[in-house]
């Protein structure tokens, strides 16, 4: 069986007809392990699979640009709006290198369905359309969620409580933070991350969670979501909004708000932020910029945003994501994404305190904020050694675990008297993606068989200690109404896979190697 030999491998990576690309063990041990397990099962099924362990950058470009892979698995985050993401992943127009549709799945019907959805202003219609899309995708399986990763709040229960997650950012969200309750006289929220932040530039980061989680607190956004994934004017910069027509939104802004440096935050700033980001083609917000034409100040408290093309879920897809930046700081800056910002000035509930690169990042409470947090400071420590985190967490040097690492330590420590945990289904998953550009992976039946061969339950139970759910639908139940249970279900069994393949005309040769039907 595959994976069976330090002795047999010649060290040069895969030799097989199929290549399963894997991340390095140190990068993510359980996933590394899971991929090896799946590859074993594929071998069992008669596929000649080799596992290529690549360091993350190489892996990413092998898959998303070179398409030099057979199977890929990583952690995919669907943030806030599933179809925007699905459109990015499966639209037939997106199959060029780097464009997002790396699986190479092409289906004009699906393209049309997604286009309709995105242009549809009516929420209920959208829900229906979304269900359709899910059904189609889960039957065609261009991509299959292996596990539905939960979001986990892991914290020192003596020091902090009331963890409420939001859909996109889980327990690191704005909503969570403004609702936290500190206990036992503690007034600092103490977290960690395995590696250092890269930048303090809200327009120049790479969208990794570690950055998003900071900038969500440092900056305000026109619209903020509550734990129902609904835009909540109570806690947003905009106290009201109105869809003027298909391509126009108007937002009413708080007028009593100010920046961390004391300057007033005005409608001018909001309009500036939108115009500046779209005019400068800030790469990070390029998807959003496509929908922004111009933003203009209507009056002191009203900003109008003109879309370049109609976007139904504008609040979720754009207004919730574009940070509002101070004009007085940014107006003179050219090439915003490459600015080296040392002390960011925002207007969010936390303000910058210090950033010791490689060691620690700290923010303090911005007392003037309309949705204040209950702790005075929040710092993140860089701690690469996972084992030391738990030590700190239990003795209270740290009081929450933002990374949400699901591993044996969590399993063993979750019952500790000092530790509290809260879980919530999230729209993120480990996916299984076959490369349809490689024959015969374009064959739906083969894909289905492979999905059946994936031991989802053992992976969840054994490798992830039962924390996640097994994957069943690409649109997670976390999306509430947008999710439907009514999709094709797949057995987990070699037998099912084998008989499906037999039915589809596949055969096995003397070495038990799978042979595609000779004649299509």
């Amino acid at each position, binding site marked *: *069986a595959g*994976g*069976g*030999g*330090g*002795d047999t*491998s010649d*060290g*040069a*990576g895969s030799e097989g007809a199929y290549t399963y690309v*894997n991340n*390095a*063990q*140190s*990068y993510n*041990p359980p996933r*590394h*392990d899971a991929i*090896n*397990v799946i590859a*074993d*099962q594929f071998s069992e099924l008669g596929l000649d699979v080799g*596992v290529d*362990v690549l*360091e993350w950058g190489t892996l990413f470009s092998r898959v998303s640009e070179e398409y030099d892979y057979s199977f890929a698995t990583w952690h995919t985050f669907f943030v806030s709006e599933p179809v925007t993401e699905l459109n990015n992943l499966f639209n037939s127009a997106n199959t060029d290198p780097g464009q997002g549709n790396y699986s190479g799945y092409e289906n004009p019907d699906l393209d049309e369905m997604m286009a309709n959805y995105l242009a549809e202003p009516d929420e209920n219609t959208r829900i229906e359309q979304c269900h359709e899309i899910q059904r189609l995708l889960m039957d065609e399986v261009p991509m299959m969620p292996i596990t539905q990763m939960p979001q986990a709040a892991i914290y020192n229960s003596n020091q902090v409580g009331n963890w409420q997650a939001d859909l996109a950012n889980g327990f690191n969200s704005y909503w969570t933070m403004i609702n936290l309750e500190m206990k036992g006289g503690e007034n600092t929220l103490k977290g960690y991350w395995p590696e250092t932040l890269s930048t303090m530039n809200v327009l120049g980061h790479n969208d990794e969670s570690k950055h998003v989680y900071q900038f969500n607190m440092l900056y305000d956004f026109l619209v903020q979501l509550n734990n129902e994934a609904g835009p909540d004017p109570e806690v947003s910069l905009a106290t009201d909004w109105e869809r003027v027509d298909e391509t126009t939104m108007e937002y009413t802004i708080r007028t009593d708000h100010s920046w961390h440096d004391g300057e007033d935050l005005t409608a001018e700033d909001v309009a500036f932020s939108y115009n500046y980001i779209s005019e400068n083609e800030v790469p990070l917000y390029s998807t959003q910029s496509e929908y922004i034409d111009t933003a203009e100040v209507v009056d002191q408290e009203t900003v109008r945003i003109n879309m370049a093309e109609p976007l139904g879920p504008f609040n979720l897809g754009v207004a919730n994501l574009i940070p509002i930046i101070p004009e007085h700081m940014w107006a003179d800056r050219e090439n915003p994404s490459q600015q080296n910002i040392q002390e960011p000035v925002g207007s969010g509930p936390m303000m910058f305190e210090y950033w010791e690169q490689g060691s620690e990042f700290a923010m303090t409470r911005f007392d003037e904020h309309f949705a204040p947090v209950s702790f005075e400071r929040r710092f993140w420590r860089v701690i690469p*050694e*996972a*084992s030391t985190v*738990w030590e700190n967490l239990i003795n209270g040097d740290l009081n929450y675990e933002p990374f949400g690492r699901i*591993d*044996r*330590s969590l399993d*063993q420590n979750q019952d500790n008297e000092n530790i509290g945990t809260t879980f919530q289904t999230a729209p993120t998953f480990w996916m299984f993606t076959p490369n349809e550009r490689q024959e015969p992976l374009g064959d739906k039946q083969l894909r289905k068989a492979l999905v059946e061969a994936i*031991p989802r339950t*053992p992976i969840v*139970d*054994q*490798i992830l200690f039962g924390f996640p759910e097994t994957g069943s639908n690409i649109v997670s139940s976390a999306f509430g109404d947008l999710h439907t249970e009514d999709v094709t279900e797949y057995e987990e069994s*070699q037998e099912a896979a084998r008989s499906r393949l037999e039915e589809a005309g596949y055969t096995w040769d003397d070495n038990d190697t799978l042979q595609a039907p000779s004649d299509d």
Partner: protein
Amino acid sequence: MAQEEQTGRSIFTDLDDSSSSKEISKWQRTARLWRETLRDHWGKLTDELSVKLSLITVAAFVLIAIFAPFIATHPPLQRQYQSDAGIIMDKWAEPAILGADTGYILGTTAEGFDIFSQLVYGTRAALMVGLIAAVFTAGIGTLVGLIAGYYGGKVDDALMRLVDFLYGMPLLPTVIVLVAVLGPNLWNIIFALIVLQWRSTARVIRSQALSLRERPFVKAAEVAGAGDWHIISRHLAPNVLPMTFLYGSFGIAWAILAEAGVSFIGLGDPNTVSWGTMLQASRAYSALEFGAWWWFVPPGICIGLLVISGFLIGRGYEEITNPKLQ
């Protein structure tokens, strides 16, 4: 020989220059020269107890490496399945030596690999890295050192600038970059180590060659008309051999340490089990935190043992080659 006839006086005149009945074969003698040199060194080496113990340790590891398939109880990268369910892994089996009823001498890793078998197979990787890197670093270093030292001048200058340049390259970072470029596998690690490590051997051998070149016995060969290669191979090489061995045995130690370091950062060969990758895995899965010392400790001990053996052999060698230390 014109002069000979003139004076007519030579003790060799009566020898028939064409007869060659009882000649001793050149190759036989060359072979013997090397054999004697090696035996001589070997004899001196094994005089010291610590060296003897080290040699035995290394020999034991070599045997383990060779017979790994017979010693190991399982393939090192084979997940240990539970019998009935087929795809369910055995979760973190405790070691049998601690009385656990699992059948795995040192238990299994978090991924379900048999630790004992990994340890056994890891010997192969360690020895491969150590020996190959050592042979090549010492070999290349010796060759370059001899050539630079013997020819001197521009050749020397060019080669020594190369060595200077290599001395400017920080070891571990360079290996990391090379491995990142070439891809994480054992051969690339070995290659990267060799690329850098021959520098010190070359430097030392060069200075030896420089002084040997001026020694009268080399001059005598030169006077007799010996060619460059003849002098390098028959006069210089055998005399720098102790240094080559010395650096070779240190090279084993360094290479193994470096491989462990590179693996520890996560650039080890994922398809090969080495002690370094074992350590890295045990750390990735926080073995220490859970008190699974049977996963974390044995590879470290093996590394230490093999490395210290390398050092001891090297040191023993140093003592015999440098009489002042005796």
